[in-house]
């Protein structure tokens, strides 16, 4: 199997990659967002900002 076939997914590439890419993006967004939230909370606790 070559790479072009892999990305074509037997003609269903749009659906299969549409599912995988959006899921990966959502996971990436959640991971970054939750880290930012913790950093902000720590920063606020440290500086005593209201």
């Amino acid at each position: 199997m070559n790479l072009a076939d892999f990305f074509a997914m037997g003609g269903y590439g749009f659906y299969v990659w549409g599912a995988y890419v959006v899921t990966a993006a959502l996971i990436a967004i959640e991971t970054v967002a939750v880290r930012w939230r913790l950093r902000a909370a720590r920063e606020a606790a440290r500086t005593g900002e209201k």
Partner: protein
Amino acid sequence: MRWFAVPAALLAIAGLWLGLVVAPTDAQQGDAYRIIFIHVPAAWMSMFIYLVMAGWCAVSLTFNVRLSSMMAQALAPTGAMFTVVTLWTGALWGRPAWGTYWVWDARMTSELILLFLYLGYMALRHAIDEPRRADRASAILALVGAVNVPIIYFSVRWWNTLHQGATVTLTGPPKMAAVMLAAMLLMTFAGWFYAIAVTLIRVRAIILERERRAAWTTELAGAAR
């Protein structure tokens, strides 16, 4: 956190490898079926997280434990994320498999209601300023909404749905090839580890946010006096 994030990544890599590369093309559905490796684990996670969240809410209502409310609060966004993934991948699978992105059948409608329950829970928490009242009100909402989870799970049996019945059940042998089942289970375990990792980070943030808020309220009260 690393103890959950690293296994999540490794399990996902193994699951993706099996699901996208090793597993053969399906005789009926072609390669479109490969959406199953996200769709089914995400759907299981969306229901499972809700039940865990409702469990923490029950503990918080019964024993008045603040940490259990914070755990429930920390789970909700991840549960909502998995619900969105379920609906999104389901739509992209429905189009090639049934010729439509969406129908109002019992399975899909009840899963959409699950998303509204998660969003409603988060919105209600957000709308109430006093944390203890927010805990109670949102816990009641989460518990009432828990009846929706068995409805989602059994919908394909109770109603005649366009959505197919369960391929993997706890009671009988699965009706799918071993390699496909392995890929799906690996992705499910990856989902569990991911959910635990993200929830533990979020609950730490929530604890800090609430402590700070409490300290500030005491200060204000002190100043007023």
